[in-house]
């Protein structure tokens, strides 16, 4: 495996830097967040910021001065956002876009579930390194949100693995590319009725995992002054905002890959556009709509909500998948 990576290195470098890698994530992630803020504004009868607002925010922050507080641990404080963003982009490489995966055969679903931990852990370490009490409260809430989102995510992924496994006859199948191929042949997983509760559960997990409005107790600007990013300014903060945007893209494209894999033509360019369109619809429905309608929850309500309502839905689909529906 390592050998042929060096062989067609240029192609892989292209994957990392351009298509499902940095450029794609940067542009599509920022666009998604722009569309999200615009939709929320429109739902409140406001004109709302231009779609390219996240780009302006990013470049403004790059121009700002970076202040490292005296109480902070300098290197961890500055390196944490970069590692978080890099890990997030690497996850995007493993997610199939209608059958085409940049690096298949390297990580299966459970590994992707755990790779999603690294960006969150990087943000937590950055917050811990800044030494601010607001950041301390923020990271404690972020950790509780991660625990809350972990259970439903696990149940959904096990249900998907079991359903595809039943069809392939091996009983369970963890690898993403096999799931993508299965959906190519017999249609998206959403069409199977045992998968509908799992899709809804995954949709409910997306706002929690990305920390968008009703579940953004970790970065509550009003209560704990931007929570984990309280002491960040300038370029590191720009990288954190960018990784938030890329996380929205990663989770929605994972949702599309898992449940809407069947939709799409063969040509890679069109598939990219179609998948991005589906991601926009997913963001609109699950993040913007929920943001405009709800108020921020207390952290123990977030935990209770995820471990009862959403996990129950995911459990329903797991049991259905288990008995071969």
């Amino acid at each position, binding site marked *: 495996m390592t050998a042929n990576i060096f062989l067609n290195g240029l192609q892989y470098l292209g994957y990392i830097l351009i298509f499902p890698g940095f450029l794609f994530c940067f542009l599509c992630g920022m666009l998604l967040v722009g569309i999200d803020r615009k939709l929320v*504004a429109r739902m*409140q*009868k*406001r*004109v*709302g*910021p*231009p779609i390219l*607002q996240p*780009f*302006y*925010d*990013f*470049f*403004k922050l*790059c*121009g*700002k*001065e*970076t*202040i490292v507080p005296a109480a902070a641990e300098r290197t961890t404080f500055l390196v944490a956002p970069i590692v978080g963003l890099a890990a997030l982009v690497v996850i995007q490489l493993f997610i199939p876009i209608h059958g085409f995966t940049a690096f298949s055969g390297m990580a299966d679903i459970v590994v992707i579930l755990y790779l999603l931990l690294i960006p969150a852990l990087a943000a937590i370490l950055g917050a811990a390194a800044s030494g601010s009490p*607001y950041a301390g409260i923020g990271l404690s809430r972020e950790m509780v949100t991660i625990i809350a989102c972990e259970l439903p995510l696990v149940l959904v992924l096990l249900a998907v693995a079991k359903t595809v496994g039943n069809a392939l006859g091996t009983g369970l199948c963890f690898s993403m590319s096999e799931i993508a191929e299965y959906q190519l042949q017999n249609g998206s997983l959403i069409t199977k009725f045992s998968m509908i509760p799992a899709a809804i559960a995954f949709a409910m997990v997306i706002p929690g995992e990305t920390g968008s409005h009703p579940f953004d107790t970790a970065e*509550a*600007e*009003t209560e*704990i*002054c*931007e*929570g984990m*990013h*309280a*002491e*960040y*300014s*300038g370029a590191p*903060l720009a990288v954190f905002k960018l990784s938030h945007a890329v996380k929205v893209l990663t989770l929605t494209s994972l949702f599309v890959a898992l449940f809407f894999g069947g939709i799409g033509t063969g040509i890679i360019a069109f598939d990219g556009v179609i998948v991005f369109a589906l991601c926009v619809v997913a963001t609109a429905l699950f993040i913007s709509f929920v943001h405009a309608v709800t108020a921020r929850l207390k952290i123990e309500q977030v935990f209770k909500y995820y471990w009862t309502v959403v996990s129950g839905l995911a459990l329903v689909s797991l049991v259905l998948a288990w008995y071969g529906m």
Partner: protein
Amino acid sequence: MFKKLIAESTAKSPWLFHINSGSCNGCDIELVAVLTPRYDVERLGFKLAGSPRQADIVVVTGPVTRQSLDRVLSAISQVPEPRCIVTMGSCPQSGNVFKGSYSVCAPLSKYVHVDVDIAGCAPKPEAIMDGLVKATEILKQKRGQM
């Protein structure tokens, strides 16, 4: 190439940090009114930031009472460079009706270089937006010289 892009986007996405140094909350309500759907200053890119580290424009309301003076100054000092100090309402500019009181160290400009003064005892939202837009121009020039 970057310099122009950064200067351009500094003007397009100014983030506000609101410090209340003992105001009667008249100006605070007006500032929030500017963010509501009717006036919607967010279409120009404005956003309320939670901590001074993430702010570009610091909006100070209230007659800077003695109790809050050093707190206001330490908060302003924590805002990273290209920043703009905006005083809203006449209290921070002259102390308004509270001028001469033992506990008011009124004109903020005695302690900090103030860039934009928005006049009015509870200025109208249009005046606030005009002041804030002027502040973004100043930000852009400051960004250019840095």
